[in-house]
């Protein structure tokens, strides 16, 4: 159902769903206490923890997980754009009556 996502990579989506339920969903109520952890409210510390987890997840998604080959597509598109630019220049030359 998800284009380009292999079976082994689906955990990312499940993890995100569970994460959302815990960190910004009903799971938040578990930490809804008027307690200070040192100088910071418990909810603040909890949110900070969520940020750290997402730093790790984002590193994995950005640098370790490749749901398609970025390099191949980039090369294909660059080649296509180069060809079109050359065609455009040739058309301009033809319009001016120059030899291509």
């Amino acid at each position: 159902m998800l284009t380009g996502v292999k079976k082994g990579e689906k955990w990312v989506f499940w993890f995100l769903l569970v994460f959302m339920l815990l960190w910004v969903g009903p799971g938040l109520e578990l930490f809804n206490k008027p307690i200070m952890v040192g100088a910071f409210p418990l909810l603040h510390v909890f949110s900070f923890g969520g940020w750290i987890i997402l730093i790790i997840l984002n590193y994995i998604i950005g640098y370790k997980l490749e749901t398609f080959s970025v390099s191949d597509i980039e090369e294909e598109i660059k080649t296509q754009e180069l060809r079109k630019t050359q065609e455009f220049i040739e058309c301009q030359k033809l319009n001016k009556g120059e030899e291509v």
Partner: protein
Amino acid sequence: MDKFPLLVIATALYWIACLIIGVYASKTKVKKPSDYFLAGGGLGTIVVSFAMMATVFSAWFILGHQGSLWANGAKYLVHFIHIPLMGVMSAMLFPRIWAIARKNEYITMAEMYGSYWSSELLRVLVVIVGALYAVPYVALQLRGAGLTFEVLSGGKIPAAKGAIVLGIVVVLYVFLGGLKAAAITDTLQGALLVLASILLGATAVGAIMQLNPDISFFQAFGNGIKSAGDGYLTLGKLGEIWSWPYIATIAITTMGIYTSPPYMMLVASAKSPKVFKFQGFIIMTIVMGAMYYIFSALVGMGGRSIITKLASSDQLSLELVFNHMGAVPFLITSLGILAAMNSTAAGYLANTSTILSRDLYTRYINPNASAKKQVFVGRMMVLGIVAVSVVFSLVVLDYLVMIGTLATAFGIQLLPAMIGITFVRKISKTGINAGIICGSITVALTYFVWPHPLGIHQGGWGLLVNIICVVVGSILTQAPGKEALKKTHALFDKTVLEDNN
């Protein structure tokens, strides 16, 4: 020492620099529309990353978030989770959006979605959502600029005049240089406003220590928070705002910045899709995460130990700048605050004017318009959007955060379409069209008519109705065929064409 004359001189010099960049960018030869509209599609990692950051980092952050954090406490901080989640979106969705746009030479989101789902109605809907998103978002920046001038001038410059002056400057350099001018200035402004945020945080720390010389910084910081009462440490009650359903929906809604039509053009203007790994991880998750979770918390929650009463919470940062900074940090931070608004307004103006020029004028009024004519119409549109935004900023007097989330509530209505074109190929035209229409109407009703029913943000209601329509519509009607898949999903997985046989 009266710092205001210094600020006037520095602001004038800074805006002259922006205009010079606009003139420089205008020297670029426009051979095809994408040269002006997408800066030729050749913007590098640093320029795109900083431009994307500066576009998010607006008056909303530097005035709105700090002030709302001061007013609401820890519950407000919880919704900052949208920042690293936007980093996740950047890494997952943007390389695909880039590839689809560049492979098929789409300049705008309406062209991309309209072509994939073969729907003229969808093209128009995307343009409408783009305008509904951009006008409040630009208005938010203008209002922020007005407030900045008013507070920092000690009331000598009324807010309305400040808003109009910023509007004129931004119009001029976007008018001249299009997205290229906006992106280059955004890069410089992005760096300036990171510096301003750090200075604001440091000033808050300095002020807390100065006001509490006998105890440690952390003790004073904690005391300020505790003095605000238990409600400052906990969530709102279920059914009210700042309860967990409200936080969840406002966090998701804020991610509508990334699904909005103007933002897609910034994505397509990148030189390479690899930009989004850096942008998503380093810039969005780490740099901006630190700005929100560390520096914003220092200013917003630390502000409780410094200031106990404010006419409007949006004034918190400005009060710190005005009353607790020396001349040099005052100038840098004031310019950083103005830069936040400048860069965001410029980015959205450049992109929204393109959307109106390409998707309305060229598509329906003058299909044979030359590249120069399209650019001219785009420039005229810049004037129109600013005029409407100025009026909006003077008429709708909600808090900055609320205006911002109204804009993104419309922007997030395009999330199902973005997922449909990149990951889930079963989503049908009828589902998407019905979802955007019903979702946007729901947003308007739950903001203007019945605000936040059951303590759920208008963006959440809109998205819920939208998703129901998308699911039902996609079950009952057919998904895009092989031709559409060839241009999109097949770029990432050739086997989708076999599945569709």
